[in-house]
């Protein structure tokens, strides 16, 4: 195992990684921007090092300073968390060049599966179903031709997009005409890559994803599924594990995910995302080559520490368990508590958290970097806590989450907790009728 690692991230995931390091007896250096000097991971770290100004481009995305920070502090490995450089193949490669272990997939894993178009070809090779979709489209004419073939509505996606960014639903040829060039320009601006492709649009699909783990030597296991259908503008707001789909279907999806990860000799933690239509057909949509925000729901139902496992696999110890050792028990739900005002179109609510009281008691886990007196910097995302509730049944997990959120106090900033309570209270949600359009269709917000 490593003696010392560098955490190249911030907020709750930096704290999550720090906790895993502590529990494994590994020293952790937390790299931080000037805006995060008083953040909890920095205050709790064994060591910390400022790597740039508040703007991420100069700090959390500053490859040179991050690598330098690892080198001058004597860290042997870098954990990238999620976001920032976590899925940057070049960064992973530069780590290796400097004899620093990148705690994540191999650079070529990221490179091959990170590109949406390439991921689709790999899925086809591995015999994993994908939504009927086009290759990258040369021009509008090609787009028209494809859309006519599969039928409207279709969804226009940026090859380099991900996590819901760079997507738009197109209802008609006119709509396509209006959107195509504009979307190309946006993709060029956002990702430096204007390539677009089309997919058949699924009405009311569920978003189901499989947590996989590979040893990089060809062995891949899975930790079952998560349902992340509750999304707002393609951003997940509430996740659960397992999904409530038919067990045979869930097994098929998990098997497909493992097949795909094996196909590319995947190493470390990864997630294969699928859309599942009402007829129970499933389609691979993308793979995330990192630990996910929602990984705790899987940890709660399997009682397995995925971040510790990332350390072990990166340190060359291989997987610590076999597929048959992975057991699933009960049901877990996570809500992402964001400092946003749900009464005002979820506008960010930065500022000082003057008082905070997180819930406790049986079945509750809280992952949060916020403390009383903490100033939420306006420079980063608005996630301030993940509250996770486990129960022997989905109904009990919901009941626990409700009682936990009702005993939570956050003062000084607005949070999305009132919104989460409304989701939990929604009759469609309670009976599991959740699709990716749930919030738009089932809730009046």
């Amino acid at each position, binding site marked *: 195992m490593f003696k010392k690692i560098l955490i190249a991230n911030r907020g709750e995931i930096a704290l999550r990684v720090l906790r895993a390091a502590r529990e494994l007896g590994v020293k952790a250096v937390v790299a931080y921007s000037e805006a995060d000097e008083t953040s909890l991971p920095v205050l709790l770290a064994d060591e910390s*090092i400022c790597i740039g100004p508040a703007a991420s481009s100069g700090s959390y995305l500053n490859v040179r300073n991050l690598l*330098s920070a690892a080198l001058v502090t004597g860290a042997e490995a870098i954990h990238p968390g999620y976001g920032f450089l976590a899925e940057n193949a070049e960064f992973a490669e530069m780590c290796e060049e400097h004899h620093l272990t990148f705690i994540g997939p191999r650079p070529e894993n990221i490179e091959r599966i990170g590109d949406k178009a390439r991921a689709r070809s790999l899925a086809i090779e591995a015999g994993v179903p994908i939504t009927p979709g086009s290759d990258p489209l040369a021009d509008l004419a090609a787009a028209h031709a494809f859309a006519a073939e599969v039928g409207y509505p279709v969804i226009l996606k940026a090859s380099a997009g991900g996590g819901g960014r760079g997507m738009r639903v197109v209802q008609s040829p006119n709509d396509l005409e209006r959107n195509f060039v504009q979307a190309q320009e946006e993709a060029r601006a956002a990702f430096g890559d204007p390539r677009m492709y089309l997919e058949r649009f699924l009405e009311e699909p569920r978003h189901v994803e499989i947590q996989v783990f590979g040893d990089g030597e060809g062995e891949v296991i899975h930790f079952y599924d998560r349902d992340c259908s509750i999304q707002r503008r393609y951003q997940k707001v509430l996740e659960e594990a397992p999904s409530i789909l038919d067990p045979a279907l869930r097994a098929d999806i998990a098997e497909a995910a493992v097949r795909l990860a094996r196909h590319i000799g995947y190493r470390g933690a990864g997630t294969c995302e699928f859309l599942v239509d009402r007829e129970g057909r499933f389609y691979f949509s993308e793979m995330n080559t990192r630990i996910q925000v929602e990984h705790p729901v899987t940890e709660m139902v399997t009682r397995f520490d995925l971040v510790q496992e990332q350390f072990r696999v990166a340190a060359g110890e291989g997987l610590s368990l076999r597929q048959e050792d992975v057991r699933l028990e009960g049901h877990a739900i996570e809500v992402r508590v964001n400092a946003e005002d749900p009464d005002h179109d979820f506008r960010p609510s930065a500022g000082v958290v003057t008082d905070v009281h997180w819930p406790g008691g049986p079945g509750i886990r809280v992952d949060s970097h916020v403390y009383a007196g903490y100033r939420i910097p306006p420079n980063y995302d608005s996630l301030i806590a993940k509250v996770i509730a486990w129960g022997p049944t989905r109904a009990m997990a919901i009941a626990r989450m409700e009682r936990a959120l009702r005993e939570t106090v956050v003062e000084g900033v607005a949070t999305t907790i009132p919104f989460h309570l409304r989701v939990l209270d929604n009759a469609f949600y309670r009976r599991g009728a959740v699709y990716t359009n749930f919030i738009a269709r089932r809730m009046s917000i």
Partner: protein
Amino acid sequence: MDVKELKRLMDAMKATGTAELELEWDGSEERPGGRVALRRESPVMPGGPASPGAPTQPGIPASSGVAAAAAGALEAMAAGTPAAGEVPAAAEEKAKGTDVVAPIVGTFYAAPSPDTQVFVRVGDQVKVGQVLCVIEAMKLMNEIEAEVAGTVVEILVRNEDPVEYGQVLMRIAPA
């Protein structure tokens, strides 16, 4: 303004430590005029861990027990690499000099090579553009140049120290 609104105002005053609130409005139907006066309580902290008025590190809220309790962690950090927290505190003491700060993370070198003279010593006169030190980052030597002319009054790091972004390396009293 009804009782509910008043209660919300009272809650808000309590939560924010507002001692006085005055509110006047003229009752005109459209765009009414009015006046608001708010006064907060004198800021004495109830039972806060750090005593008020105590010199605390800038940026670390004095009221935060979390921050206070992490002092040990900060000390550990200071042992590993020079703590950022030291810098502004020290800066207050010797406010006369202009700070030369590290623009990148890396290893500080006072001299171009192990067997040569250091670039500058305390007391040296420096010109704008003169090389003050080198920071090595990823095998690249980055020369740090003076941005003001003057006298080097203090050098805060030692040769081969690791330095973090924004760390004060030395101070120059402008000529």
